């Protein structure tokens, strides 16, 4: 069973009436995801590709039984939209939007914890479960294959690349989660690893990390003590200069902390196989059936 996604996932799209929202809602539906509602304030009554649009999340939940949301709401309004979705009791909220102010994200994450919701993102490609044919986000449909590898990543394109390589190597995926490239994410690597460790459908784990913060070091400590499944990792930014933001808001080495070297060493010491380049993750997981 996919991690984090509720039984009978019914998805609401915040910002369905926008270009991105409409396009990706179609892609999600083609993947097999039930898209039951859209929410755009002031657009109640509009129907997008057969999906009814509501003014508020509460109404949409009431009318359609939605239990998860994907948000494409522009950054200045993203916090309000997220708090509304969490307040309406949605179990999972995937925030695709990039450039949300970090204080807004902290408020979203704190409110989600208070209400028991899971936030994936922001600035993320979303979550996909190939076997269940569920995708909440913008990951390309055709790269997936059902299988036993759990993938957790801070990057979008690198995730696509690695999932594509895994599928090509005959290694399907149980759940693929992009936690996002911002300084603050709703889900940490450690939290996702904990879910993968508990998930019977996940037998091996791939981590795609990058410079900045200590999510990988925290994950290494968690793996050392709590994870028995084999893990392989790739860390981007091995040659990145300090004090420069490398594309992602969270990808920055500050005051000597958050280097790729520190992350790779910590993970290696925890028994994780380290890939020298992204697609090597597939080869490392194909060989190692046990934690090294």
């Amino acid at each position, binding site marked *: 069973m996919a991690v984090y996604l509720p039984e009978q996932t019914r998805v609401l799209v915040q910002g369905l009436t926008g270009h991105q929202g409409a396009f990706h809602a179609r892609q999600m539906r083609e993947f097999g995801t039930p898209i039951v509602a859209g929410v755009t304030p002031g657009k109640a009554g509009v129907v997008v590709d057969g999906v009814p649009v509501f003014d508020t999340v509460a109404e949409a939940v009431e009318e359609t039984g939605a239990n998860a949301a994907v948000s494409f709401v522009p950054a200045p309004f993203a916090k309000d939209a997220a708090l509304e979705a969490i307040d309406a009791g949605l179990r999972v909220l995937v925030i695709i939007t990039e450039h949300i102010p970090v204080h807004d994200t*902290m408020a979203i994450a704190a409110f989600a914890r208070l209400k028991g919701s899971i936030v994936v993102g922001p600035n993320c490609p979303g979550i996909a479960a190939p076997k269940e044919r569920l995708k909440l986000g913008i990951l*390309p449909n055709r790269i997936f294959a059902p299988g036993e590898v759990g993938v957790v990543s801070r990057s979008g*394109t690198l995730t696509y690349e690695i999932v594509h390589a895994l599928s090509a190597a005959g290694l399907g995926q149980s759940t693929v989660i992009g936690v996002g490239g911002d300084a603050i994410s709703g889900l940490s690597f450690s939290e996702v690893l904990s879910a993968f460790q508990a998930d019977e459908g996940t037998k091996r784990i791939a981590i795609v990390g990058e410079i900045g913060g200590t999510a990988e070091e925290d994950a290494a400590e968690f793996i050392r003590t709590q994870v028995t499944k084999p893990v392989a990792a*790739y860390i981007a930014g091995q040659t*990145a200069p300090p004090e420069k933001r490398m594309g992602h808001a969270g990808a920055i080495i500050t005051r000597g902390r958050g280097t790729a070297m520190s992350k790779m060493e910590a993970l290696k010491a925890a028994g994780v196989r380290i890939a*020298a380049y992204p697609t090597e993750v597939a080869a490392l997981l194909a060989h190692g059936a046990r934690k090294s």
Partner: protein
Amino acid sequence: MKLLEHRGKGLLLRHGIPVPRGFVVRSPEELTDLPWPAAIKAQVFAGGRGKAGGIRFAESLEDAKKAVDAVLKLEIGGHAVREVLVEERLPIQQELYLGLVIDRSARAPLLMASLEGGIEIEAVAEEAIFRMHLPPLLALQPYQVRRLLGFLKLTGATGRSVGEIAQKLAKLFVAEDAELAEINPLVITKDRMVVAGDAKLTLDSDALYRHPDCADLSEDLTALEDRARRKDIAFVQLEGDIGVIANGAGLTMATLDLIGRHGGSAGTFLDLGGTDDLEKVKEAFRIIRVTKPRVVLLNIFGGITKCDTVAAGIRDVLEEHPLEVPLVARMQGLHEERGREILHTIGVETAASADEAAKRAVGLRNSQG
């Protein structure tokens, strides 16, 4: 976005935190009066100003002019000094550290304080630092201030002043969308005033839209980085000479790493992001041309981005203005065959993998001597 000290102090003052009296000059001639014994401080982003001679003291107008002149001639950490802060010299009794950062793991602001101010907080012993997370949905609460003052063993009027400053700084941190707000040192003067001796503030550039008065302060971006940002292209100028264009921050970083593995050195980090916009691709090539690379390496994995759109943008921009250096490309994913065909028509052969492309790019660079 980092703020220079004088701008940071301006924000502190706006939030009611005492700072020394002072003003900014850009030449010794601007200095016509010295109302008090002064500290003359270089306004640069680099650390280690004091050691580099960027902080001086003057008692007289004549000495102050000399000091301003000397400081303006300095280059500190690669930054030429253009502005000097002339401010009232504080009679220091004690120096504290007070700072707020964002703790990414805890997803919350972290308040830090120490009696050992005036040196970098990294150099202070763990047990001498007070740390407390502030719940994001609440302001700094009075009980938290009491814990802070208990740790610092500050009482009476001084304790009250430090507590008030901590609360004001915590409010500023949220209200101004700060990522870092450090007062180091927070000075207790001989007459028991508490004043911010320095201010190190970094604001969230993603929140500038709600601080229009700060929007012109992006002083830490180069002109080219600023130009790229306007097109929503993430661009960083690097030391090497292989120009890298890729899509997605992670993939772009991974491409730099592959170049490093093959013994080369990247000259740019240029992340196109997800794009269906020909203009963005064209602007990317115009920007990379300015950096004068010896080889350009393009690495595209088409997830949402379509390879043929990117290839068409490249064809158009190179027809306008051919590249004088070799272009090595790798394209995989959505519409990859069409993308490769388009590149073939302009004489660019694609590599089978990112690794091979990086190897080829480094080889072409090295063959130029």
